[in-house]
């Protein structure tokens, strides 16, 4: 009996997202699909000990859930039209079903991602829905990750599902015409989830590993199902950033900057995978923003020490990125790379010009960068003022401790 429970648990972990994605297509309703799936798993716990584990558990579950859904629809006394449609769509024999489903399962997972990230849904709802439906996180887990309450999140998800139904958001992979915009929306959700896990926007802990792991999981799935260059570029970027996780915080939870990180802690297999993926992406010659950021991350990853970093190559990638995305934040990062290539004075001139334009006046990292360059030039008073300004602009505890440490070092 324990054995069967273990088997069902394992099948749930491995298959529940696939089963759900297919059920949503067949049933056409998120909630009903979810209820039916859970009933099917309950039926499995009852029946598998008696009848044995089916040869194709996935097909068994879809078939069982489909009957449960039809029962429910009947109970709800909703007209029989939907019934008939469903009955026609699915062959009754599990054998035929298995053959049919194997082709469709992967597409259904892709459909689910595109529906959850549809640009007609509010951005926060896209994130919540993706984590809930694609990744299978509970509402409580998502609420914890985003420092929100479960009821707020539940309401957000309910509203999103309602809009999917009422506004007719389809369960399809977009047409070629709509694919670029829609893929962009999907990648943005994935990267937001990754970043929320990699550098939490507030709170005591610097990283929330689970969210990053989920983002990478969805990233891998996307690359497997739809190997578009920017999807590959984003996965490469996430892998390269993730490779530094262990080195990014000290045992006491403090922030460790790139140049001070113990590079022996970097995850080599992730770096190798990221760089391989990046090279394949660059070879497509369709280079987008995520790919360029991955290229920048790869220059760090390839350097045995901070001093040995190829800063000329780094500035080169930033130049390309700046042409594609002319934003002040990219300019700031390029200025820091220029400082490493040409010396702190050259970098400071660029940072000051940026701050003078006012775009980054309230961005703590701009002031932290200015402070660091002033410190390296021995201009302590200016460095102090800039560190203090940066400190007043960030809420994240580890970053605050880092800035306070730098300020204390200036006093010596």
């Amino acid at each position: 009996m324990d054995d069967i429970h273990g088997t069902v648990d394992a099948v749930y972990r491995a298959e529940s997202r696939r089963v759900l994605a297919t059920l949503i297509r067949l049933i056409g309703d998120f909630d009903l699909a979810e209820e039916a799936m859970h009933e099917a798993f309950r039926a499995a716990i009852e029946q598998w000990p008696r009848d044995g584990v089916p040869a194709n558990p996935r097909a068994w579950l879809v078939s069982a859930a489909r009957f449960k859904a039809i029962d429910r629809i009947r109970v709800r006394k909703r007209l029989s039209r939907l019934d008939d449609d469903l009955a026609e769509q699915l062959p009754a024999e599990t054998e035929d079903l298995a053959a049919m489903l194997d082709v469709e399962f992967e597409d259904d997972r892709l459909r689910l991602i595109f529906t959850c990230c549809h640009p007609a849904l509010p951005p926060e709802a896209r994130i919540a829905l993706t984590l809930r439906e694609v990744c299978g996180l509970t509402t409580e887990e998502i609420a914890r990750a985003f420092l929100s309450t479960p009821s707020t999140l539940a309401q957000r998800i309910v509203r999103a599902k309602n809009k999917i139904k009422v506004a007719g958001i389809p369960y399809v992979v977009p047409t070629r015409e709509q694919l670029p915009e829609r893929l962009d929306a999907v990648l943005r959700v994935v990267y937001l989830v990754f970043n929320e896990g990699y550098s939490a926007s507030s709170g005591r802990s610097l990283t929330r590993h689970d969210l990053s792991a989920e983002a990478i999981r969805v990233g891998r799935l996307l690359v497997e199902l739809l190997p578009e260059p920017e999807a590959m570029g984003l996965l490469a970027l996430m892998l390269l950033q993730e490779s530094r996780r262990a080195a990014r915080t000290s045992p006491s939870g403090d922030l460790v900057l790139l140049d001070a990180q113990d590079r022996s802690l970097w995850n080599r297999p992730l770096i190798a995978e990221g760089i391989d993926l990046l090279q394949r992406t660059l070879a497509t010659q369709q280079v987008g923003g995520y790919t360029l950021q991955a290229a920048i991350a790869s220059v760090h990853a390839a350097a045995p020490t901070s001093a040995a970093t190829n800063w000329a190559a780094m500035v080169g990638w930033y130049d390309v990125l700046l042409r594609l995305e002319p934003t002040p934040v990219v300019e700031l990062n390029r200025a820091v790379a220029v400082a490493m290539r040409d010396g702190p004075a050259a970098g400071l001139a660029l940072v000051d010009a940026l701050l003078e334009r006012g775009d980054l006046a309230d961005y703590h990292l701009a002031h932290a960068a200015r402070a660091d360059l002033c410190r390296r030039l021995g201009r302590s008073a200016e460095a102090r003022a800039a560190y203090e300004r940066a400190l007043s602009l960030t809420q994240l505890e580890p970053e605050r401790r880092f800035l306070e440490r730098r300020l204390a070092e200036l006093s010596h």
Partner: protein
Amino acid sequence: MKYACLVYLTESEITALSQGEWDALNHECMAFGETRVGNVERLGSEALEPTHTATTVRVRHGRITTTDGPFAETKEQLAGFYAIEAKDLDEAISFASRIPPARYGTIEIRPLRTLVVEGNTR
């Protein structure tokens, strides 16, 4: 599914166009009226006269109040609408993106609501 595609334009931007440019945009709309978009069925469409020709009517406590102009001061004004029948929202988006004024203003897509005896959505 049935949708309304509501066309919003900033009237001051339209008045800033030359007569030739404005006529050209209208010719585009006339040509679009003859264009098929996927399997979208057109249920009806109209262009509206500008808001300074509008009249607003309200009934409160059984009394009719009639005033000039639109009710609220907004940046963009309703300039026309299309009612369509499309397969799903993506097809409606594909239709809306081809409405010529989409290049100037915005198109709001709204599902049409069916009135029922009870349990109406809101």
